[in-house]
């Protein structure tokens, strides 16, 4: 087995992204929002295409029309549920309506995450090799119900364990060809990391916040790895608190002094920062990675996640 250093870089520019955003805005506006799935496909395509691992770019092969079908299904589903809740509320059944809504959200969010992961990773290609998400939706649902319940019962404390269990489940089920990701972050460590970050941020009047961010990023990256048989690739963060301070302060200034117009540049430079601060090394021979994952075309989960505005969680 040979020891390798791998490279991961972002090659996009703020200017190109700005143009894409403008074109997307024009088309989304004149189609009264219906263009949204195509706009999203273009943005994702741009970000994937400019993220290069070992000289080969990632590719997002999802299309606007696939996501449009999901968009319509998600729209109809959510409109009918919200319609029912509003109907019940107007007929003096607020409690029934509200509990119905919460139960619906409790079920739909994990299912949307599941659908979103399946679609997004089936459409992610690197070097001709498809990614894939292997998780089981019922297992994920049980995990979320248990997590939500215990988080409420412990007035939020269990949230840290819930977040890590969720992250572990999702990441451990991601494959690229015949290599598999794994994550070993646990609730206890994550909880104390946040307690420490929170308290020190207060005592230092917010200055420690940037070091807290550094710790969170490192906790995510350092616990992630990719394995293929007996070969592994390890990830490590080399960003310092000072680096985060510089990144966030410059972003803030850019944003304020351009009235938000610099947003595309801010996104691009943050992306560069995050990727440039990951060190990847190990023994995986990526040239031998094999195609094993199936294609998957249903984007409904992806679109529900968009409507509920929780984006793509890791």
């Amino acid at each position, binding site marked *: 087995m040979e020891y390798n250093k791998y490279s991961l870089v972002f090659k996009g520019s703020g200017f190109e992204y700005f143009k894409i955003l*403008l*074109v997307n805005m024009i088309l989304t506006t004149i189609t009264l929002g219906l263009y949204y799935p195509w706009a999203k496909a273009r943005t994702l395509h741009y970000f994937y295409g400019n993220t*290069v691992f070992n000289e080969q770019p990632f590719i997002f092969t999802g299309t606007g029309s696939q996501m449009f079908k999901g968009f319509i299904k998600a729209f109809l589903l959510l409109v009918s549920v919200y319609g029912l809740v509003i109907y019940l509320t107007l007929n003096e059944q607020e409690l029934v309506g509200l509990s119905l809504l919460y139960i619906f959200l409790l079920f739909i969010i994990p299912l949307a995450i599941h659908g979103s992961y399946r679609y997004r990773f089936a459409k992610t*290609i690197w070097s001709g*090799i498809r990614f894939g998400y292997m998780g089981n939706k019922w297992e994920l649902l049980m995990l979320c119900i248990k997590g939500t319940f215990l988080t409420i019962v412990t007035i939020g404390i269990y949230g840290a364990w819930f977040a890590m269990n969720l992250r572990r489940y999702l990441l451990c089920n991601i494959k690229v*060809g015949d290599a598999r990701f794994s994550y070993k972050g646990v609730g206890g460590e994550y909880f104390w990391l946040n307690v420490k970050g929170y308290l020190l941020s207060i005592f230092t009047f917010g200055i420690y916040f940037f070091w807290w961010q550094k710790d969170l990023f490192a906790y995510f990256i350092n616990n992630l790895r990719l394995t293929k048989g007996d070969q592994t690739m390890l990830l490590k963060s080399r960003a310092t608190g000072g680096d985060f301070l510089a990144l966030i302060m410059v972003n803030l200034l850019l944003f304020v002094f351009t009235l938000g117009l610099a947003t595309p540049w801010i996104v691009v430079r943050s992306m560069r920062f995050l990727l440039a601060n990951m060190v990847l090394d190990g023994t995986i021979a990526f040239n031998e990675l094999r195609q094993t994952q199936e294609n998957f075309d249903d984007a409904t989960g992806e679109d529900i996640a968009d409507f509920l505005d929780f984006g793509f969680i890791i």
Partner: protein
Amino acid sequence: MDNIQQVDFFDGLQAGPKLALMYFNAEGISIQLGAYWDKEATVLFFPYKQCNIQQTGNKLFVFLNKNATNYISFSVDANFADDLKQKFNQKDQSFAGSLLKMNVFSLLLMVVVLLAGVYWGISTIVPWAGLKLIKPSTETELGEKMYQSMMQGETIDHHKTKLLQEFARSMQLSKTYPIKLTVVINKEVNAYAIPGGNIVVYSGILKAMKSPDELAALLGHETAHINDRHSLRSILRSAATGLIVSVVLNDISGIFSIVVENAEGLRTMHFSRGIEKSADEEGMKILVKNNIHPLAMKRLMERLKENSPEMPEILSFMQSHPATDERIKHANEFAVPYKNSSFAPNPVLDSIWTALK
């Protein structure tokens, strides 16, 4: 064949690149695996319509199927790169594609024009539809609820309320809304209308007024707010703004919404100045209808001016109510045609007035 080029080929079975030879013509791309072209061996053919091209850094990638599992890559500097790019540029005739080729300033201009259009559209359609959809009876119902909650913690002068109600009944105020009056004990010189028909008058303003005409003018002004549904209009306007901010602008960035909200604040001020002016005018029409000289409105203004703290002229632009002087001038102009008309005194109003005082 001299136009055969060497490229990296990815076969979608295993990740690493394989050496391949490629040539292209008007229809598509032909590829053969290996380092030497063999006329006997299989040639894979990919028509352009299923292919896509992408540049990342200084490399070009041609995806040979929609799944992007098969592709070739080569340097942007390769002598055939421009030719091949040309073939794909001809293929992309979509509207989005032509937009992407435009320069950034034209795009920015288009976005600004479109957003202005959307802004105008929403801020016109929402209030229009709202006024159509919400019936006066619904407004009265909702207004009554508002009134109930506003009256909590206020002391009502029941005796004066009754008298004032009689005063209003002897006037023709509104055909659509049941006008209901309430006198609240409060030193402030103020009165306001609640949508749907309620008018709240502070005892302070009653004390300040010197004649029944002034009171009639006040009721005329407040009734005009109710008849012309001014509150509903401004609620609908803020709803429209909220909609614009959340739907269109939230996706761009937070700071835009701050800018819009501030601009909207200034516009609202302007709007409410317009509303006060129109309520003065409609109020004077009500006075004329009730056989009261419209100059009573002017006297009411003067009374308000006497009782309000001085405000420097320069701030009048910032005030939500138009500067009283401006309103006095306006009332004066309105009254010009009635200069020589005579208005008979109204004994009923006069007697209630005396009782109120």
